[in-house]
């Protein structure tokens, strides 16, 4: 039946087009290996039983990306000086086209980001996913949590309204109650004796340069470890990856309603 035929014109055409379309990818792969990297990332195996709770990490990442994009746009119109800050915020929120949406998403996105970090941390705790060999990733996570809260604290001052100003006065003074370093820390945060333009500049540079750079570096490390180590299976799952399976006599486990899949489990399920 199978008779080898000359490829038709259309077939030749199709193959040529395919080669032309993949050429840029081949070019990139040959020079960087990036295509292979992305393929590895996409087609790597994850445990068969991962569930919705395990989307919280990438949801946190999404919230952070929303903050990054809206933050960059806000920085184009915001003016970090006591004289102009408030009016530039008013201008963004009430006059710029879609300015309210960008500022609103940044303002509310901050809360969503922080809530998601806590929920994600809760999921990791519930799954016991901080255990060997993921201790380091838990520590990186705690640092991310601290940096996220610091970003919230420094961003709160920027609108330079009454809420912002007095919350920061009290917040900075609270840092001042620490033993030994307290007064120095408070002095540093204020950039002087009073909260003024210098404080605003300092908070602005921390909020839009230093802290985001720290968060981005830590997220990169965090995700590297997630890909290297893999995510854990839900610990209660019957087919949890790494689960220790002990052969037991089938009479012990097999009930009327639920036959045992492959013996009972004992001990840890890594």
């Amino acid at each position: 039946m199978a008779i080898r035929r000359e490829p038709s014109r259309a077939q030749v055409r199709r193959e040529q087009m395919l080669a032309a379309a993949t050429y840029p990818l081949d070019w990139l792969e040959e020079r960087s290996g990036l295509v292979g990297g992305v393929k590895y990332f996409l087609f790597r195996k994850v445990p068969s039983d991962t569930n919705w709770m395990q989307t919280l990490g990438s949801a946190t990442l999404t919230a952070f990306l929303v903050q990054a994009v809206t933050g960059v746009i806000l920085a184009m119109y915001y003016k970090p000086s006591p004289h102009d800050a408030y009016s530039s915020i008013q201008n963004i929120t009430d006059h710029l086209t879609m300015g309210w949406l960008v500022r609103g998403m940044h303002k509310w996105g901050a809360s969503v980001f922080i809530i998601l970090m806590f929920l994600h941390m809760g999921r990791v705790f519930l799954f016991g996913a901080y255990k060997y060999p993921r201790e380091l990733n838990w520590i990186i996570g705690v640092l991310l949590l601290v940096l996220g809260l610091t970003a919230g604290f420094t961003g709160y001052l920027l609108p330079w309204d009454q809420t912002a100003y007095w919350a920061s006065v009290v917040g900075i003074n609270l840092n001042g109650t620490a033993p030994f370093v307290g007064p120095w820390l408070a002095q540093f945060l204020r950039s002087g004796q009073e909260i003024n333009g210098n404080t605003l500049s300092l908070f602005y540079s921390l909020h839009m340069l230093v802290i985001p750079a720290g968060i981005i570096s830590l997220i990169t490390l965090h995700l590297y470890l997630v890909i290297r180590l893999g995510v854990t299976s839900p610990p209660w799952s019957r087919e949890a990856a790494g689960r220790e399976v002990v052969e037991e006599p089938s009479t012990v486990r097999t009930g009327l309603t639920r036959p045992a899949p492959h013996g009972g489990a004992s001990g840890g399920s890594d």
Partner: protein
Amino acid sequence: MAEEKPSGLDERRAGFARYKKDVKERGKSFFPYAMFHDTVMSLIVVSVIVGLAVIWKWTSYGPHHDGLHKGLIGPEYAPPADPGTVSFVPRPDWYFYFLFYLLRIFKWPETVFLGTIGVPTIALILLLALPFMDLRRERRPSRRPVAMVAAVLTIFSMGILTWKGATAKEALASEVIADVPSWVTQEKLPAAAIPGAKLFATAGCTACHTYLGTGSSNLGAPDLTAIGTRNLGISFQIRHLQCPSCVTPGSPMPKFASLGTARLHELAVFLESSKGKR
């Protein structure tokens, strides 16, 4: 926790090797299976953020063309910062409420440091140390009673503190000033102390201090009903108000130098005349 010894490192290594093997043999491909869930969740997150921004804009500025209007979930902005008038309640963003409320529990000067730095630092150290304290291989929540009870207690207390911080009743300047006549009669304040009393009621002092039951106690600030009995002196009071942390190292009370010496003098007279209920 007690009945089981921490699993040895060799066992933990074997467990992880088993994990890697299982994932390789029985795992699913990240794309499209896991990634589909991630994408759906991310879309929900972005929609919630956009939704909040819309509600905020439409209910605050929307109906009144006034960004100061409270709306459903808060105003676009408060009035501009004014270091001179303190008739404003200092309030952090909601995720610091627990800390804010914690400070009502501790008292200046003995324990306030516990609330500001002590408890948060201990919490942070415990979080960082968690993977090194809990060395058992067991991951099932039903077999980790200590961890689960600790988690529930933590969530419960953070929730209570945040809720209390959110609903804490703050004394508004307009309400506090109505109490001034009763202060005058109860404390038998001289006429010279009345301008200072009004200033005290409106300058935000009652955000941290209580006076004859008015105001809320925050950051461990002392009750000032009978501050005059300590005879600290007018010039001390003025110096303290100008720069509390210069007089009392580490004081979290804000500086009130911007009120100007004349008004600080009025405040000092009021404080020194406050000899308690008479």
